[in-house]
């Protein structure tokens, strides 16, 4: 399908999947929080065994809650007591230091079974009552996972919204050596940036990473053959296949909510147009037909429409259409540059890249009231991807000379960065709920 020069870069590690942990983890740096975060005290979990614990469960839970921007976690040094069982809780110790909620727990290690028993309890300080608690029994390598689960339970119990601490993020790193040679890597990591696992390494550009709705696969664009092609890779096994390698553009893959279709941008018919590929039958249907650029499709969560970017009005603006390309209508009118829209999970808003005063920021648009809110302030923000609970989004920005990932709440008030130790980090994609 690609006319010539296929295999130019045959030496790149096409298809070679490198698994295992590596040192490309991201760290968390909180810059802003909401105005009135909920004060929660997470007491260090009592260790009921002699061996030291491989992971600091208390720290993980505290960091998770803090990172959401909706909580502020009490410093251990300010705690008046350190209870680990219900009968040790004195509510006054916590109301005195202004706490609304209290989390306590303990961990026991069984040498015979080589497992850890982790028990947590959540208390409401105002109402002076036990709220929720649970016990998990896991091996050492799953301590972090369980800690995130506990964070999810606490977050959901208090806010009524599902937590996203057990979700994953996918992203691309780029390192350029002294000779100008590029090293692109595709990673999947925990939502807090830890446990990064490499899925692809190539000297050619990798971009447009998109999670399948079941959280088991990634679609992305790689130039590893010298020309762009769309691949689908299974995260767990690393197996992958080429789904589109026509002459010209193969870009912007977007899954339908039922996982049956992949919308994408192809220029095989001469111009950038949006198509939808039936992943079961291989049937390809063209959705747009305009001499302008049509690209960056994204399905609505209800599966009824697709938003996309088109410069048919003279510059990039966001449009929507039915899933067969019918009723194409313009959605954005504010500013000269609005592109790469993604729906929020409730179908009510879109988030996208908006240019104003020369800066490119992430903005949201309420589809019923047509109210636009600019969520970020740095000059080169792009690639927004919604967290599955609709509360936050991850995006790529520039800090110093490097690209970094940042997360901002949908009200624009809470924000944190996920800086990498080296090189550029870009093209983030937030996974759906995994379990």
């Amino acid at each position, binding site marked *: 399908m690609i006319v010539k020069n296929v295999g130019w870069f045959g030496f790149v590690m096409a298809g070679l999947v490198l698994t295992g942990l590596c040192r490309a983890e991201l760290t968390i740096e909180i810059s802003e929080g909401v105005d009135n975060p909920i004060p929660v005290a997470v007491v260090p979990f009592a260790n009921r065994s002699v061996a030291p614990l491989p992971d600091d469960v208390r720290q993980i839970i505290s960091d998770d809650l803090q990172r959401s921007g909706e909580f502020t976690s009490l410093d251990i040094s300010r705690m008046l007591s350190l209870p680990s069982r219900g009968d040790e809780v004195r509510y006054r110790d916590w109301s005195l230091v202004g706490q609304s909620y209290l989390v306590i727990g303990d961990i026991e290690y069984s040498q015979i079974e080589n497992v850890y028993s982790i028990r947590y309890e959540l208390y409401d300080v105002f109402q002076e009552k036990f709220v929720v608690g649970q016990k998990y029994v896991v091996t050492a390598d799953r301590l972090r996972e369980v800690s995130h689960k506990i964070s999810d339970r606490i977050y959901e119990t208090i806010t009524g919204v599902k937590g996203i601490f057990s979700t994953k993020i996918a992203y691309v790193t780029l390192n350029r050596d002294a000779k100008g040679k590029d090293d692109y890597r595709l990673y999947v990591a925990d939502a807090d940036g830890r446990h990064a696992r490499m899925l692809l390494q190539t000297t050619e550009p990798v971009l447009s990473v998109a999670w399948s709705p079941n959280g088991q696969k990634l679609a992305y664009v790689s130039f590893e053959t010298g020309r762009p092609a769309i691949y689908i890779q299974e995260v767990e096994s690393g197996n992958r296949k080429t789904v589109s390698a026509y002459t010209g553009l193969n870009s912007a893959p977007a899954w339908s909510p039922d996982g049956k279709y992949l919308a994408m941008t192809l220029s095989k018919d001469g111009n950038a147009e949006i198509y939808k590929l039936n992943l079961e039958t291989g049937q390809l249907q063209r959705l747009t037909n305009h001499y302008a650029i049509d690209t960056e499709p994204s399905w609505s969560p209800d599966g009824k429409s697709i938003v996309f970017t088109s410069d048919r009005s003279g510059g990039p603006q966001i449009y929507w259409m039915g899933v067969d390309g019918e009723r194409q209508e313009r959605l954005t009118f504010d500013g000269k540059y609005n592109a790469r829209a993604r729906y929020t999970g409730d179908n009510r808003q879109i988030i996208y*890249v908006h240019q104003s005063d020369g800066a490119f920021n992430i903005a949201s648009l309420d589809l019923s009231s047509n109210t636009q809110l600019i969520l970020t302030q740095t000059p080169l923000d792009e690639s927004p991807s919604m967290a599955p609970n609709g509360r936050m989004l991850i995006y790529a920005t520039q800090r110093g000379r490097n690209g970094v990932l940042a997360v901002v709440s949908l009200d624009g008030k809470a924000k944190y960065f996920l800086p990498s130790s080296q090189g550029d980090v870009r093209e983030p994609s937030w996974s759906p709920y995994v379990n």
Partner: protein
Amino acid sequence: MKGLMAKTTLALVISTALLSGCGTTGNKAEGVPADDQQTSGTTFGAKNTGTLTAEELAAQQAETARKAEAERMARLAEAKSKEQAALRAIRTFYFDFDKYEIKSEATLALSAHAAFIAANPSVKVVVEGHADERGTKDYNLALGEKRAKAVERFLIVNGVARNQIESVSYGEERPAVMGHEESSWAKNRRAVIAY
């Protein structure tokens, strides 16, 4: 600014004239000796004496003039060929932000590429389209392709066969210059003809 424009336009006219000359040089070269042969055929075939007749003198003068003209044409062709080669050294063509129209100052060099590629059917080129880092990556991929295709279309309109050109867009992935300011961005919004 106006003077520069006028100069560019003039140069374009001359170059176009030379270009059309290039296309027909072969025919003229064949055409001139054909006329000559006819004249000399009747003259030299009829007589072979030491004295020059008026006819012979005229023929000699014609021959001298023809040689001079041929030399002049050769010099012109050489100058033109040098000029064309110099123009073909320009392989990168720049674009305005979010635009994919070829700038007027690019047409001279693009015409030189078109003439060369069209005259050499075995030559194949790849037109690479690029965008600066601003805006979204997938839109920039499409934008880079529009830029590459604009160059491709110019070459085809100017005589290059479709199968001699391939367009590929790298979007914002391969900046020519690293940097986060307009001077760098301007150098990155480009299409490059790669032979």
